[in-house]
């Protein structure tokens, strides 16, 4: 009862102060109690529909509970009810900042299940599109992290580059955003020499533009103070929590699936895996900046080394035939009909296939019982697992660092929520 009267008197004191237009009302023990701050799901700095419940002591974060699931669309259930080919467009909607990389990851998993391989030209092109997707994702990271800590120019500059990339994607896949470019056993279509010339111009110019952004950030006192030593995670904790991608490489672990378990033609290409040891937001930023340069190196090598030839494997019962052949040849018409209506009929078995997506290890676990659609398809999405590290990174930081930490983690909710 006594407490209540105190509360009422407090309220009325605030009210009175407001009415009197005093701005200097103060209480002796205003910070005595913890406060729960609900951030999101609709919040510009949470990069989608991430919701955080943050317990605050004054301005210091005491604890944090991430809540996800606001973008859950049930892709794993959908996958069980559509054929292997029909699922390719759904992979665009996982990590929607790098759809080409998801397309590649998914068809690699199905090809592993089927035991087939795409022809060399398709493999080189898949490396090229995966690296373009990595650049696209990291540019988004660069722009949004810089914007989260208050540097709006970098956002504009990185989006200028991403705009050029979307033009490339449009020429490569026919769509800017939802590309659905890969096919089981190959690609939707070959890339024209004009587009390859555009890609070459883009990657030749990109390092200069990255340098421009770095000039704004790397010696910028505000940027450094907002990221240096913020959101630290130790190597042991990172491995225990399944952290992958640039975040893990910023903790001093040089784990990159492109080097560790090479897929496609990565073992024929020369590139380095940048590793930093800070484990903080700044280290994650450095890793991604270096990775963009490595991706440029990879694409330049692909453009030099890429052989001519077909981009579809010759496996009539597994790989969709070309449209012009479907309309003119009997055999291809039959195969097209069978694949579209009944699926590719993979063997009975289970596989797990993972690639190094821009955000970490993107894996597909497929359990097949020999039918045209997967019995179970599990998507191991890097953002889902990486978000688990948020409570550790946030503990003890200031409320203003929260957006910097989320920005440095670079989660995409389309992928975390599936």
């Amino acid at each position, binding site marked *: 009862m006594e407490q209540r009267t105190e509360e009422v008197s407090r309220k009325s004191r605030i009210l009175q102060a407001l009415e009197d237009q005093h701005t200097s009302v103060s209480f002796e023990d205003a910070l005595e109690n913890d406060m729960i701050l609900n951030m999101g799901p609709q919040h510009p700095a949470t990069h989608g529909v991430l919701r955080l419940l943050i317990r605050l002591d004054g301005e210091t974060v005491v604890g944090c509970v991430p809540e*996800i699931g606001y973008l859950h669309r049930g892709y794993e259930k959908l996958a069980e009810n559509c054929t292997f080919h029909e699922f390719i467009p759904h992979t665009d909607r996982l990590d929607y900042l790098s759809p080409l990389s998801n397309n590649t990851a998914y068809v690699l998993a199905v090809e592993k299940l089927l035991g087939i391989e795409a022809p060399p030209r398709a493999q080189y092109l898949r490396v090229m599109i995966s690296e373009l997707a990595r650049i696209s994702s990291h540019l988004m990271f660069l722009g949004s992290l810089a914007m989260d800590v208050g540097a709006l120019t970098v956002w504009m500059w990185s989006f200028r580059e991403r705009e050029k990339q979307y033009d490339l994607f449009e020429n490569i896949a026919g769509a800017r955003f939802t590309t659905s470019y890969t096919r089981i056993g190959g690609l939707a279509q070959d890339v024209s020499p004009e587009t390859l010339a555009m890609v070459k111009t883009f990657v030749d110019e990109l390092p200069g533009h990255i340098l421009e952004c770095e000039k704004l950030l790397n010696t910028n006192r505000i940027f450094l103070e907002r990221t240096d030593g913020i959101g630290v995670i130790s190597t042991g904790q990172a491995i225990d929590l399944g952290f992958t991608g640039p975040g893990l490489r910023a903790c001093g672990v040089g784990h990159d699936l492109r080097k560790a378990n090479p897929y496609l033609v990565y073992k024929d290409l020369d590139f380095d895996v940048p590793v930093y040891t800070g484990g903080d937001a700044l280290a994650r930023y450095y890793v991604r900046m270096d990775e963009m340069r490595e991706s440029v190196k990879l694409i330049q090598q692909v453009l030099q080394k890429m052989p001519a030839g077909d981009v579809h494997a010759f496996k009539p019962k597994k790989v969709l035939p070309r449209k012009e052949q479907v309309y003119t040849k009997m055999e291809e018409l039959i195969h097209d009909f069978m694949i579209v209506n009944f699926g590719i009929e993979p063997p009975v078995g*289970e*596989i*797990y296939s*993972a690639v190094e997506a821009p955000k970490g290890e993107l894996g597909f676990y497929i359990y097949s019982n020999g039918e045209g659609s997967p019995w*179970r398809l599990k998507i191991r999405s890097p953002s889902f697992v990486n978000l*688990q590290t948020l409570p550790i990174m946030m503990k003890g930081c200031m409320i203003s660092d929260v957006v910097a930490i989320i920005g440095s983690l670079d989660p995409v909710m389309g992928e975390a929520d599936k």
Partner: protein
Amino acid sequence: MNARIVEALKTRFGEKAIEASEFRGELTLVVPGESIVEVCRFLRDDPVFKFDFLADLSGLDMFTPAKRFAAVYNLYSLSNKHRIRLKVFTEEEDPKLPTVTGVWGTANWHERETYDMFGIVFEGHPDLRRVYMPDEFEHHPLRKDFPLMGIPGSLPLPKK
């Protein structure tokens, strides 16, 4: 590598406890539910195998009368760059498995997701709440008897 892992596990846990199969070069080990935590801890702490990284944990609904549900653990060794898969079956009535959050912290959210989607209860889990679906939702959507179009009325809409 695969043969050595099978041999080591069979000497440690008995010939009958481990059931091994291989497909496309990937080793799958079926492990009894009660010994999954010891198997995981053994594989993580073994100085040769060092499976220090749980890449993925997923549920599986076989839709059979016996051994209906399974949990699938995809393990990875950062030093050996090697993958294996563990599989544990549980029954349709009252599906329960011991948690492996004590072995790998990352299992926390994965087990929450498996509980949410399949209804497998992980005993000893520190915070077993639904991760995607609302807390008051009664069904488990990735079970094979849950229809694709959902169950009308199962997701309560806000009152007008």
